[in-house]
Structures are given as C-alpha cells and as structure tokens.
C-alpha cells in the first residue's frame, strides 16, 4: 500500500480516541452478552429491572456507535475525496468515458462496499447497452444481468430519472434477481441533461448496505462521468465543424475557379465582374468568355437560396451554359434546353434567374435573353438615359415548356452596361429602405468616367455607404454579384 495513499487513513481507528470507543463498545457487547445469559423468567419481578438494564446498554451502544461513526467519518471522507480528486485529474487528460468508468470501478472498492457492480452505457438510438463493465456476477447469469435494464429497477429509473436505494431487495417488487446473494442494491442513473446515458449499479450481500451518503457519492461520480461524455461529444462536434469548415473552404476555391480569373480588356470593350458570397459558398454566378474573336458571351445568374445547395446548382448552370454555347444553338432555344435540364435537378421550391447575352464586337450589338433576372441597366453615354434589359421569359428550373424571347440592343461608344444580382438592390439600410434601382442608377451616373472595375468598386462603395457598413466589409447579408461591360469611347 502506498503510505501516503487513502489506505493509510484506515489506520486512524487503531489509536487514540478510536481505541477508547472500541474498548467501550467491546465492554458493552460483553455486558449485553452477560445480560442475555442472565435473562430472567418472563413476567417475574426481576424481568422489569432486567429490561431496564438492557435498554440502558442498548442506548449506550447507540451513542458509542455514533461516536465511532463520527470518528471514522474523516477517514472515509478522505478516501472519497481522493477518489474524486483522482477522477478530476483524469478528466483533465484525454481519458475516454469508458476508461473513466473502469477507473471508478477499480477505485470504488475502497470507498463503498459492494459484492457485485455494473456500469452500463446506453446506445442513444434505442437505449440498449452500448458498453458495460461488470464485476461479481456469475458468468452463466450475465444474460439475466442484461435483463435488469428493462425489467429491474433500472427500467423504473429510466422513467423516473432519479437514483434508488433498495435496503432489502427481497421486499421490493422492482428488483430483478440476477444474483442470489444480493440483499441490498444502489442504482444511480448517469444523466446528460435530461437524458439517461447510463447506470451505476451496486449490489451487496448485506441488508441496508447503502444509505444517503453512498447515494450522494455515486450521484457525484455519475455526474463526473456525464461531464466527460459531454466533453467528448463537444470535442467531436468541434472537430466535425472544423472538418465542414475545411470542406467549405475547398468548395469556395472550386467555386472561385468557376468564375473568370481576370477582367476582359480589349481595345473596344472591357468587362469586369465580382462575386461576394454571403456565406463560404453561394448561389450567384457571373461569367464572360470569348465564343469567337468577335463574340463575347456574358452571363449573370442567381440561384434561389444560399449555401451549398445553391452553389451546386450554380455549377450545374455554368456547365449547362458552356456546353450549350458550344452547340451554337440559338439563344432562346438554349435557355429552353437549360430550363428543362434544371427542372430535373432543382427542388420544387428552387429556381434560377439567368441573364445570358452575346456581344458582337463589330456591330456592337448585344443579343440577350433575360430569364427572370434583375434587368441589367444600360447607361447611354450620349443622352445619360438608363435602359432596362428585360426581354426574355420565365425563371429557369420551375416550369416545363418555358419559351424565351430574344432581346436586341445596339451599344454606342462610351455606353456602359451594369449587371447585378438582387443582393445589391435588396440590401436595406437601418431604416429598412432598400438600395434599390435608384441607388444603382445614382452610382452608375457618378461613376461614368471610371473603367469597368472602377465602376464595380464604386457601386460597392455606394452600397456600403447606404447600409452603414465599414469600407472594408466584403460580406453582405445576401450573395452579391456585379458585372460591368464598358464600351470604349471613340
């Protein structure tokens, strides 16, 4: 034994006041034995005096026993404290729940009497035993031990969620016999918030082995175990979140790779775009690409909803447009095809708005289809007038047999075309007023000498000013995508 360990505390009652009490007890026991031998005939005159002596001795016995208990109490508390401290120490390490349970089983012997013990952890899905550690049961009766869970006192506790002491199992109908010698039992649930995740079960071959003190100790231990389970769950949760976060970062970089990497700078026209998802990934999309050296394809799209589902659909829209562009379908037919394709892959409450255009450089003609998207705004250099590009048809991915109309507009030198998603016009200020078409138009006019990229930055600055956001903010309440096409001045 480790002399500094808990066992050294047990030697306390071998000296000092403990010895006096023990001597007194021994004398009392001898006195009672003597009285027993001198028992007079019933109802004789001596019998009432004899009874008085017995009662006196019993009272003294009570007093001495209480004194002894008080004297032994610190030793017991010391051992309990040692156990709790040891458990506390292990809680700080990476000890698993099961190892902690085993540690408790191994150390419990010095503190609480038991002839058989079990610790059970339940499967949260169906409340069957997930893990158990048993001591003191006959191996051929283990199947009965497991039945205790449904039929014994544990079944009762599962409903009432409190610990139970059975001083005499023979008189308690809730007891389920899996061990013939057991006379008293203590069962404590391991509770995580309001849910039972396991049990401690102690059985003793003596009557009334367990009282309030043992009950409280085991409840404390059970709550310690529950704490490790909670810590383990929290840790797993944190790791899961970290993993999802890492996945989202990858998804974001994939999504970024689907967007044009550079602005388009040609002698007669330039195109710039930016995409600011409100979460790691978003459902907005812009694109500009050379179909032929004369023709520039231009796309802006918005998937209803946000996050991963929207981003997956957005990837599907991009693939569809790029494949259909290669087939040189007429643009209206192309959007009908895309609609049918998206109908297959979108949820019943999801859809996509798309503005698709081809800019023919020699003629400066823009041919477009607006499938339910916020109409791009064309600012005329010559007149300062603003035109909305609305011709087209229904949103994509919601209704079968949608038909689309082509729109045409001839651009002039210095004209600028601004594309956006609803994250721009719908952003509200503190007073609940949206940035709106007015905000967009004002910023467009204010930026009429800036290049395409500068125009986008100016719209963003105006939006931040409207919403009262810091100039470095790049994450807005909704996904935000902007694109600008600027025709060179003559």
């Amino acid at each position, binding site marked *: 034994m480790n002399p500094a360990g808990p066992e050294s505390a047990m030697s306390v009652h071998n000296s000092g006041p403990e010895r006096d009490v023990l001597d007194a007890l021994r004398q009392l026991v001898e006195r009672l034995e003597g009285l027993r031998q001198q028992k007079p005939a019933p109802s004789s005159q001596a019998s009432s005096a004899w009874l008085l002596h017995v009662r006196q001795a019993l009272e003294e016995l009570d007093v001495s026993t209480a004194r002894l208990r008080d004297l032994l109490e610190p030793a017991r508390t010391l051992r309990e404290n040692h156990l709790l401290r040891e458990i506390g120490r292990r809680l700080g390490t990476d000890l698993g729940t099961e190892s902690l349970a085993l540690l408790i089983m191994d150390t419990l012997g010095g503190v609480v009497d038991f002839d058989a013990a079990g610790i059970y952890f339940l499967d949260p899905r169906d409340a069957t035993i997930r893990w158990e550690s048993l001591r003191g049961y006959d191996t051929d009766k283990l199947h009965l031990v497991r039945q205790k869970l449904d039929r014994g006192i544990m079944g009762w506790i599962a409903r009432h969620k409190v610990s139970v002491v059975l001083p005499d199992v023979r008189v308690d109908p809730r007891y389920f016999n899996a061990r013939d010698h057991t006379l008293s039992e203590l069962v404590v649930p391991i509770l995580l918030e309001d849910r039972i995740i396991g049990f401690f079960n102690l059985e003793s071959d003596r009557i009334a082995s367990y009282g309030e003190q043992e009950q409280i100790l085991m409840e404390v231990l059970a709550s310690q175990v529950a704490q490790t389970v909670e810590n383990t769950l929290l840790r797993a949760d944190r790791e899961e979140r970290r993993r999802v976060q890492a996945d989202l970062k990858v998804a974001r970089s994939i999504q970024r790779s689907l967007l044009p990497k550079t602005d388009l700078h040609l002698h007669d026209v330039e195109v710039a775009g930016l995409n600011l998802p409100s979460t790691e990934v978003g459902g907005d999309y812009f694109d500009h690409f050379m179909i032929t050296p004369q023709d520039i394809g231009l796309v802006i799209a918005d998937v209803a909803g946000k996050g991963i589902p929207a981003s997956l659909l957005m990837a599907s829209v991009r693939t569809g447009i790029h494949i259909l562009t290669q087939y040189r379908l007429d643009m209206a037919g192309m959007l009908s095809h895309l609609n049918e394709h998206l109908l297959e892959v979108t949820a019943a*409450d999801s859809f996509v708005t798309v503005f698709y255009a081809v800019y023919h450089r020699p003629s400066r003609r823009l041919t477009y289809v607006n*499938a339910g998207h916020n109409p791009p705004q064309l600012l005329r250099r010559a007149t300062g007038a603003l035109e909305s590009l609305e011709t087209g048809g229904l949103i994509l991915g919601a209704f079968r047999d949608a038909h689309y109309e082509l729109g045409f507009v001839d651009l002039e030198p210095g004209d600028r075309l601004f594309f956006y998603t*609803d994250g721009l016009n*719908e952003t509200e200020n503190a007073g609940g007023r949206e940035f709106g078409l007015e905000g967009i138009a004002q910023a467009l006019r204010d930026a009429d000498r800036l290049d395409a990229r500068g125009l986008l930055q100016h719209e963003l600055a105006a939006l931040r000013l409207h919403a009262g956001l810091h100039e470095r903010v790049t994450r807005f309440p909704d996904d935000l995508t902007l694109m600008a096409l600027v025709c060179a001045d003559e």
Partner: protein
Amino acid sequence: MKISAESRDNIVVLTLKGNLLGGPDADSFYNEVKSFLDKGNRQFVLDLSNVKLMNSSGLGILIKALKPVREAGGDFHLASVTEKIDSLFMITKLYQVFKSFPNVEQASRAFE
C-alpha cells in the same frame, strides 16, 4: 408569416400576413394548401395585401405549392399584390404563371 384560410363557395381564400422569406414558412404554406386539396378544393385566392417583404425563397414557396394545385386541375389567383412584390413578379416574369387581380373579390369572381 401567418396564414389564415377561409372557404367561400368552394374557393379557398388564403390570407398571408408578414414576410414571405422562405425558411420554416415554406412547409406551413405547402401543408395548408395540401390539406385543402385533400378535402377536394381546387381554386385558391392568395391575398397578399399584408405581405410586406418577399424574396426569391418566398417565391419558391408559392411555386412549390402551385404544382400540386395545377396537377389537380386547379389554380392560384393572386389578389392585392403590393408594389414591391409586384416588381418581383415582374422581374421573374411569374405573371406568365400566376394571374393577378386588384382584390380578393375580383380574384374569386375570375374563377366563375
């Protein structure tokens, strides 16, 4: 969002109050429409006079509920669409799909 329903002459008038922005509202609206369909109702008037805000997810809610109504041979008529929501229907061209009327009265009468 709050939904109240009233059935007059086989026409179900659904009055929406608050914001239609997707989320948990999606299921409650769909289930409400479904329960009337199960009772044999086919004609629905959607009173939008008290809907303050609607976004694309809110539109998604209406689109999703329209599908089983159309499949059962019925229809939705919109009534009292406010200016802001009107522009949403304009942009998305959803007026090609949803018929809109100035008020519940006219929307109901249009079923006759």
